[in-house]
């Protein structure tokens, strides 16, 4: 039940925040709505702490493999859709990240959002609830439900509280992700019918659908359907162009959630669904996907280097950093996968904080144009110092979390495909160029306008300090995160790896991963764990 509460709390919190603000009449600048939202998220945080503390005490531990909590209830039995949530280390980390960034988002909106505060927090919390649902759902229908559910609130966050071109950006964001989602829905249905026709059991259940036999062509097209949705969300070049607009126009909290969480649902989808469901197809697709990743790293960096709008620059760096995710996922070995998890977390923190800084600057000087900034270090040294730390995180300086992430990804990718890894490593150079240019234009150099602005407030300093401590901690002591994700990732590797073995044993030559890609699963060691997962389909916690 804890899993359900994790989702219900923000849902309910959002509704209450809206109602309470309506009743309150907005006289107290929306304070009740803010506190209710904070409370709901703190409740989730406490719940997560309890789950983590008690994860060994659960009855299902061991039997479920890497899962330590699950909830399965009937939902729409007629079509075989069930309300199936489950949590393993990977989901736990991502849900934790969601709640943490949620709290940060509420904090940074404290002064920025003054208009329709209740409705703002309603959208914020519903979006977070959708994201949590995505990270927990193990039924493809439910997954799609949450996938779509996070879109609409985000659309409103951008369209109502955004900047100058908010309507355009919100529309573009919605159309891109909606189209991607529709393609995925078709792929889900395709998989559903193929599985149903074969076994007579029509179900959307993740564990049942894993290992569905199909022709190589069918697997490839279905895989491509999922890939499209995840690539749009990630985003990958060339379907990235919604991102700079949406991130730039969104209010600060919206940018933080977009960069920190919504993009990561794409990464999560690749890890949890794409490769385990279609291991052979994704193995043969790997070189293409990695090439797309490399293109994203370099193209995003060039885009970022050319920008004059601070928020757009930061947004473009996300395209670059998400390229690493694509490379890491398709390298599919434990080094690269751990790197992907680290990248998900560290990018959320580092880019999130950069957006917060850009928002804080815009709140003070009402512009995002770097051509009008310069020498701000003199005026706001604390802001400058924080900016420096996260610019360095962005360029992958060792000692900060992002380095561990990118190094592991490149190391794993070198094992899988050295050429791609070497090309991706060029990202280390181009990221230096844009990150330092940003620092130079904003904080150093000539003074272009005589701005006078206050430095970070106590609340902002608190957020910044928490983020700095986290990113340094992740850079020097990443092992707890690695240990938390490790069993889950091994489970995923085992699922994907075992199928390739099963298929090749069955002698279905064309479906086997070609020998060239056999190394793709080289690290997928250990006994087949998915059997245990399938067995407890009807277990309830």
């Amino acid at each position: 039940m804890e899993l359900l509460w994790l989702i219900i709390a923000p849902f309910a919190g959002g509704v209450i925040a809206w109602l309470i603000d309506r009743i309150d009449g907005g006289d107290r600048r929306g304070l009740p709505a803010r506190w209710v939202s904070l409370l709901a998220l703190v409740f989730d945080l406490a719940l997560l702490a309890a789950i983590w503390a008690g994860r060994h005490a659960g009855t299902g531990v061991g039997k479920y493999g890497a899962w330590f909590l699950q909830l399965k209830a009937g939902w729409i039995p007629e079509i075989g859709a069930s309300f199936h949530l489950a949590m393993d280390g990977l989901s736990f980390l991502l849900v934790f990240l969601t709640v943490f960034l949620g709290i940060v988002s509420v904090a940074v909106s404290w002064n920025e959002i003054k208009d329709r505060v209740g409705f703002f927090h309603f959208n914020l919390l519903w979006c977070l609830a959708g994201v949590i649902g995505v990270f927990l759902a193990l039924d493809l229908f439910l997954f799609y439900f949450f996938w779509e559910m996070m879109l609409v609130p985000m659309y409103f966050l951008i369209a109502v509280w955004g900047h100058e071109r908010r309507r355009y950006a919100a529309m573009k964001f919605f159309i891109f992700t909606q189209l991607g989602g529709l393609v995925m829905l078709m792929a889900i249905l395709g998989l559903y019918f193929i599985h149903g026709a074969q076994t007579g059991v029509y179900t959307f259940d993740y564990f049942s659908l894993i290992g569905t036999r199909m022709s190589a062509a069918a697997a490839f097209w279905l895989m491509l359907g999922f890939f499209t949705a995840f690539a749009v969300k990630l985003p990958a070049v060339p379907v990235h162009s919604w991102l700079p607009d949406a991130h730039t126009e969104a209010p600060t909290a919206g940018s933080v959630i977009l960069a920190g969480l919504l993009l990561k649902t794409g990464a999560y989808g690749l890890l949890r669904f794409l490769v385990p469901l279609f291991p052979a197809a994704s193995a043969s697709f790997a070189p293409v996907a990695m090439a797309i990743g490399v293109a994203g790293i370099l193209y995003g960096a060039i885009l970022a280097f050319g920008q004059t709008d601070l928020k757009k620059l930061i947004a473009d760096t996300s395209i670059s950093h998400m390229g690493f995710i694509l490379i890491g996922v398709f390298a599919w070995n434990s080094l690269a996968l751990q790197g992907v998890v680290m990248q998900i977390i560290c990018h959320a923190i580092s880019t999130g904080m950069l957006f917060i800084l850009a928002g804080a600057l815009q709140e003070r000087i009402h512009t995002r144009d770097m051509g009008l900034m310069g020498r701000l270090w003199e005026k706001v040294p604390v802001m400058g110092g924080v900016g420096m730390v996260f610019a360095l995180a962005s360029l992958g300086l060792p000692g900060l979390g992002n380095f561990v992430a990118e190094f592991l990804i490149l190391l794993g990718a070198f094992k899988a495909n050295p050429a791609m890894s070497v090309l991706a490593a060029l990202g280390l150079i181009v990221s230096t160029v844009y990150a330092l240019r940003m620092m130079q234009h904003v904080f150093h150099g000539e003074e272009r306008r005589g701005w006078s602005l206050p430095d970070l407030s106590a609340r902002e300093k608190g957020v910044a300090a928490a983020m700095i401590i986290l990113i340094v901690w992740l850079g020097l002591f990443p092992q707890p995160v690695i240990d938390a994700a490790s069993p889950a990732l091994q489970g995923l590797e085992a699922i994907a790896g075992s199928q390739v073995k099963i298929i090749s044993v069955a002698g279905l030559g064309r479906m086997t991963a070609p020998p060239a890609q056999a190394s793709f699963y080289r690290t997928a060691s250990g006994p087949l764990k998915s059997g245990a997962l399938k067995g407890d389909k009807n277990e309830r916690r």
Partner: protein
Amino acid sequence: MMLPYLWLIPALPFAGFLVLSVLGRRMGNGPAAAVGVGSVGLSALVAILVASSFINAPPPAHVYTQTLWRWISVGGFAPGVMLYLDSLSLIMVLVVTVVGFLIHLYSAEFMAADDGYSRFFAYMNLFVGSMLVLVLAGNLLFLYLGWEGVGLCSYLLIGFWYREPENGAAAIKAFVVTRVGDTALAIGLFLIFINLGTLDIQRMMNLAALHWRPGGALPTIAAALLLGGAIGKSAQLPLQTWLPDAMAGPTPVSALIHAATMVTAGVYLIARTNVLFTMAPAVQIAVAVIGAATLLVSGMSALVQHDIKRVLAYSTISQIGYMFVALGVGAWSAAIFHFMTHAFFKALLFLGAGAVIAGLGGEHDIFRMGGLRRQMPLAFWCFLAGACSLSALPLVTAGFYSKGLILSSAWEAGRAGFWLWAAAIAGALLTSIYTFRLVFIVFFGEAKAKISKKPGPRAAIPLVILAFLSVAGGFVNFPAFFGIKGSMFFSRFLASALPSATYAAPLPETDLLLEAVAAIVSLAGIYVAYFFFLSSPEYSREMAGTAIGKVLKRFWFEDWGFDWLYEKTLAAPYRWLARTNRNDAVDLFYSFIAKVNMFFHYGLSLSQTGKVRFYAAVIALGAVVTITIAVFAR
């Protein structure tokens, strides 16, 4: 036993950085200096205690390791945060902390009037900590952390006076150019780990010796990638262009980072991974050739500079070239010996130059100085000691012994030996000329400016100590032909960490002859400088006025056009691409789709006129067309 306190050596400067970066802005100058200088001073003290413990009661196999914590552990990839102390890293630690402390002390006075006082010491402390991580790291990933850390501090300190856009540009250039090398190094780490399964330096070298064929593809590529990192950090051809610009930073920064310590990190890396380079003879020869080419190219560039710090910067590049020659011929300990003496005399020269610059109110141009000998006697004598050491004045200077060892090692290095020696001896001539050109123009002749400030005690003490070390620091390694007890002490001390030189030392008679040639060349260079720049400067002006002279001067002044080349071929195209594509060409495609949709949208909405007669006519027309098709299209 002090060895277990090894971790304190890097930890103390880091602690200083933390204190200064959190509380620095609320501190006065006094406390900030106390923390900044004190942390490095304590670190030096611990280093000296550790050294005496290491020498008096050597640990087993002359190696002491200390694992602080497990950094990352994923599927067999488990680099720890591990310190590795042997005689090589001990020497590095001593030089870094002691010279670092002296420069910090000097800075306490030099930076006194600056509004970023505590920020300066925060960055400097961070630098010393990172540099100590670099030299103490037991595995390559941890070394890489220090490696990038010192690069960051170099960036922060070059751009320390952030209000000037040129300083920012120089800082960014330094970071980006060295990052090119760093990326090669990172790829080298991937290659080494994937093929050998470890990044622990000693294990890696053992495994490489076991599994790799000497001269094979893997050791060659791995060594070449490490070399890429080394030439970036150590400003060797063709990545040397960032160092002269790095002089934009405060002078103590140039002394510490861009002369004594960080720029020699590449030398350390190659010496540290010497087995890999021995297994890749082609790369090792490349090291020597790059070193020889660099020392000549930069020596010539140093000859024509006007800015006192740029002369010293080119000199640094050139001297590191000597270290590369030594590494390339397998004379590992000679390279480290020259690193040490260079750290003393080059730090001294920079600090002396800093005293001159501060005394003249920020003047860098040597042609606006002159006759400072009388006005600043202390700075003059100290600078002279450094200059003599740099010029390898025979017998009485440290530079003579370290450079002499490199020259005689190069001589014996097989077929290439003679040419490497010839390049190095030509470089020695250049060194004396440009060094004493500086001395004669700045300190002799007529006084052109008034001194406004003389170094106070906190600046004078480091100058005197470094002057002493620049003279006496070479006595730890008397050449064998002196026949005295304790000759080659330094090299023998390093023998537990570094293999003996690849080529046998020359016979004492040959060695004596080589040293004599070097001594003559050194003195000849000083005389040339005296003749052209002090006694008859009209000749030098005349030479510079000829057609060839003009071209050469321009060419050398602009550092052989490397900057121009990189600007035209890399920087400018990249900027152009980014600027042109600012609005993202890919987005045009989506905008086009949107436009097409809008076109039909407006097109169709035109038909919505609201006129009943129009609707009726269209309905009738539609009906006619439909019926016509239905009738005739069967």
